[in-house]
């Protein structure tokens, strides 16, 4: 079956590469030896397959090209950030020289032209790196477009600006299959939802960040969304939704576990902080369990990271003043060893489970 996404194509190519390595090993150990005719047939089949995949998805055919493509990925990310900053500073440098009408024309045109450039580059760019670059610049141009029109006409700042930014970021992400823009779009969704939740309690929208609980509804929605909406053609997107959702949940919990005064709850500050410390441990452990069970790597890893952060901050509260520093850090080190052992046990258990699972018809 022909893979439908770059990720699936890469997985298929990796399987072919591993198959050939194993076949060579079996051959050298005398376990399995294919006839010349069989070898030629398999090689020809895989060569054709890899050529097709390379043509359609620009896959990495070997370890060297994989390393290079990581480098290209980083270069395109940094390049995109630099180009976006360049657009911003270019406009600031010269916008005062033009009348308001021309300024608006330049801003709108920059959004439209960069969108057109993204569409053109996407159609021709098999690698996707140049598409990412142009799409990021297009997104930056649109953000700049809205911000500057607000400044030119002295428009009252509003949380509603997050809506078109979110929509545009998500559309570009789905158009170009870009996780970075998906994360940017989802960050705008989170900001908008948190601001709305804040305004329901009468608070001016710009203070939405001062009530960390405002982020919880958005966190839950984003985490659950990939379970409701299937991403057949965008197989790497569900992980981004879950990761962004988890970050939007765990960061507020971490903040509230040390700053109970920021909560909506009408309890004493100590009780609120204790509650959120408990939530931090319970939910990060839950994320590890869920991640391992569902084979969601990002969920399990995020759970581990936050579990350790909650643990370390608690150790700090308890022992930083009390213990000599060498002992404090020794406890941290030993805890890390303990976490590693637990994770190793879990991994072994998970491996046995998955092997059992694979035996099932």
């Amino acid at each position: 079956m022909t893979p439908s996404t770059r990720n699936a194509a890469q997985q298929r190519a990796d399987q072919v590469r591993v198959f050939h390595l194993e076949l060579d090993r079996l051959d050298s150990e005398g376990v399995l030896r294919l006839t010349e005719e069989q070898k030629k047939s398999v090689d020809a089949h895989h060569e054709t397959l890899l050529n097709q995949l390379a043509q359609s998805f620009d896959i990495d055919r070997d370890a060297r090209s994989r390393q290079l493509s990581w480098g290209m990925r980083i270069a395109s990310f940094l390049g995109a950030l630099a180009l976006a900053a360049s657009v911003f500073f270019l406009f600031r440098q010269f916008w005062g020289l033009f009348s308001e009408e021309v300024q608006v024309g330049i801003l709108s045109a920059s959004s439209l032209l960069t969108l057109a450039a993204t569409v053109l580059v996407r159609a021709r760019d098999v690698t996707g790196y140049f598409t990412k670059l142009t799409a990021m610049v297009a997104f930056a141009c649109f953000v700049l477009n809205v911000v500057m029109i607000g400044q030119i006409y002295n428009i009252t700042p509003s949380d509603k600006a997050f809506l078109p930014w979110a929509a545009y970021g998500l559309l570009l992400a789905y158009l170009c299959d870009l996780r970075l823009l998906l994360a940017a779009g989802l960050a705008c969704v989170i900001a908008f939802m948190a601001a709305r939740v804040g305004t329901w309690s009468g608070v001016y929208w710009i203070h939405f960040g001062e009530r960390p609980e405002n982020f919880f509804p958005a966190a839950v929605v984003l985490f659950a969304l990939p379970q409701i909406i299937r991403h057949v053609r965008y197989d790497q997107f569900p992980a981004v939704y879950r990761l962004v959702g988890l970050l939007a949940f765990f960061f507020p919990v971490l903040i509230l576990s040390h700053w109970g005064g920021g909560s909506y709850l009408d309890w004493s500050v100590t009780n609120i902080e204790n509650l959120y410390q408990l939530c931090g441990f319970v939910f990060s452990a839950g994320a590890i369990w869920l991640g391992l069970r569902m084979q969601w790597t990002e969920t399990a890893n995020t759970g581990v990271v936050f579990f350790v952060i909650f643990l370390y901050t608690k150790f700090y509260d308890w022992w930083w003043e009390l213990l000599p520093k060498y002992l404090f850090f020794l406890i941290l080190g030993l805890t890390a060893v303990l976490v590693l052992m637990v994770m190793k046990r879990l991994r072994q258990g998970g491996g046995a489970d998955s092997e059992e699972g694979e035996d099932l018809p």
Partner: protein
Amino acid sequence: MKAPHIPLQLAALAVIVVTNAVALSGAMLNRSGDAESQLTLSQRELRLPYRSFDRENSGLALSLDWRVLVHPDKNVVYYSWEYSRGGMPEWLDKAKMESLGFDMSTVSEQAGRRNDRMLSREVLLVLEFDGEAYRTSLERARQSLVTEEEKLAALPDSNDKKNRLKSITDQLTREENENSRLFVVDAGLSVETLRAKYADRTRYAIVRGQIRPWAGNGRGESVARGSISSVSIEAINVPHAFRPLLADQREPGQGRFSASLSFGQRLEPWMTHLEVTPR
């Protein structure tokens, strides 16, 4: 060649077009018809930015410098500043805060301990230009000077009193010639109600702003009242046509000018006239 995803492309295009259309039509709506109010301010109320720190920005925005008339007795309300933005005006007491929709029943209990729970809300603020609030402030500065002169007369050799008198004299000079004459004098929730009370549209402008509850101790007892945090639009873009007039003025206080600000249907300001006045 990849699948074109035409619906996504069209949707992205629509987002750009619709967003620009909404933003621009909102700005046009604000400026349509007669202005809700129009103030003629000077360099005292519209401060130039320190442009030498931002050489790469060719645009120019003036910052609206507003004040509040604070209680004359500093022991009554802490954290008030007389000569810059923000602060706790005398009129923004507990009853006024309740009339603006704040639940002040628990605020006094929260003094000190849970002040971080009290966040700003958006209300309408009345800006008064060169009116009663400024005259009161000026009178207080003059009265201060008289009081210090009397104190110095009683203790003519006191260096402290001499220094204090100099400081008060400078303060009065600044109040007469440099400090902003734009004061926030009232707050409300309805433009109509406020306009009925402040009918002069060339002296009173209604704008959006943020008020925050405050709790603290004054004269040893718990006090709950309000503090004005900000006015929603404090940076006023200088239109391209007026920019050359301010080209030589690189720092605040360098030159003198008068500028007309109109506040439109959405209470958003824009500059309609600017004139540089020679010193």
